[in-house]
């Protein structure tokens, strides 16, 4: 456990200085807010897993997102994990793209998501729950889990609404392992709101306007042969984000497993910062 906590602390210590960051508090659910064009967002998202039967673990992903256009965001993830009493391993990478087909705000705003993942079976970032994902899969040692290679395509339909300060988002997930496995399905639903709607006139660190709180519910929906709620993992997760005046955004979410197949508790942390005008700076380099 000390090793896990030390890794967690290292993750925070290595996070660079403050720059304006995105305020979304969710870890699993996506809303319709895309990266600002030309901006680069870097996030570290560790998840401390406390399963019922398997060993505790610290999964982590380094997320690098870039706003290509106002309607298109692309992100790359580098994933790894450390399991208590086992080993620390790099588990693979993912490349996701999100597109906003409707360019104006509507009551419900759709976003199309497509991701390609090349990870191994030891991946424990739990960025989404699909199919009949279970904590029992984590019982095996890393050296055995790593033997399984997963090349997956994942798609999401993201629906999101902003109303009177609230954000309500619903995601429907469909994932396909390219090695002749059936489509697996999952869902994520989130609602959040800033603790104060109007900003105060002074700069402050702990005032309510800098906090956003909400809740996420996510889980699996079986696969193409058996589309169902039952027999899958489901989680209920309060979320809290804190935007520091300097711009660094911190997030925290304890996720509680709701079924016997779920991990008992997942503690998710997130540190994000944004490099404003990254594209502009890069362009200057090549002039």
């Amino acid at each position, binding site marked *: 456990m000390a090793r896990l906590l030390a890794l967690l602390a290292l993750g925070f210590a290595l996070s660079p200085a403050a720059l304006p960051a995105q*305020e979304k508090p969710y870890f699993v659910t996506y809303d319709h807010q895309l990266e600002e064009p030309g901006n680069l967002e870097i996030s570290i998202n560790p998840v401390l897993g406390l399963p019922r039967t398997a060993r505790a673990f610290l999964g982590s992903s380094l997320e690098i997102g870039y706003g290509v256009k*106002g309607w298109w965001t692309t992100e790359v993830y580098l994933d790894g994990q450390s399991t208590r009493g086992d080993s620390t391993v790099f588990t693979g990478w993912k490349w996701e793209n999100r597109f906003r087909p409707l360019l104006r705000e509507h009551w419900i705003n759709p976003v199309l998501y497509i991701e390609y993942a*090349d990870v191994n079976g030891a991946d424990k970032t739990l960025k989404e729950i699909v199919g009949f994902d279970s904590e029992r899969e984590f019982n095996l040692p890393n050296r055995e889990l790593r033997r399984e290679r997963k090349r997956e395509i994942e798609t999401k339909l993201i629906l999101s609404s902003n109303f009177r300060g609230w954000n309500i988002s619903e995601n429907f997930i469909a994932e396909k392992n390219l090695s002749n496995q059936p489509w697996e399905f999952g869902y994520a639903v989130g609602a959040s709101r800033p603790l104060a709607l*109007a900003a105060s006139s002074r*700069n402050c660190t702990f005032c309510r306007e800098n906090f956003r709180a909400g809740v996420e519910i996510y889980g699996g929906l079986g696969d193409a042969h058996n589309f169902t709620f039952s027999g899958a993992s489901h989680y209920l997760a309060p979320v809290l984000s804190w935007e520091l005046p300097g711009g660094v955004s911190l997030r925290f979410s304890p996720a509680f497993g709701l079924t016997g197949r779920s991990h008992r508790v997942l503690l998710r942390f997130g540190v994000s910062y944004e490099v404003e005008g990254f594209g502009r700076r890069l362009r200057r380099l090549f002039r």
Partner: protein
Amino acid sequence: MSHAHLRLFVLALLLVCAGGLASQDARTARSSDAQLAGAPANAAARKNPFEGRPDAVRAGQKLFQRHCAGCHGQDARGKGKAPDLHSPVVQNASPGALSWFLKNGNLKAGMPSWSRLPDQRLWQILAYLKTLD
């Protein structure tokens, strides 16, 4: 990750960056002006509930520095393809039309949607913008 995958990955990233770099567009300001003029009448008719309140102006200035100055400049004079917010087009527009525009953005031209900010904060930003010369 195999070398072939790594090469594919780096190539894809470069393509994506190139796409972003090619997005400079001189038509941006004109496009935004046109969109501002196209705000629905009921949205354009809305009044700013924070108008003229000094505390709202200060709050709006703080929000502007946090969210807008990166593109429009600390003095809101505009830089790159982000327009000058002192311009008559902005200063003469109704608060309702500006609020509608902030919420919707102009995604094609690179202006993001600020619908994630509560209405109150958008009005505070507009209360500040209206104090610019």
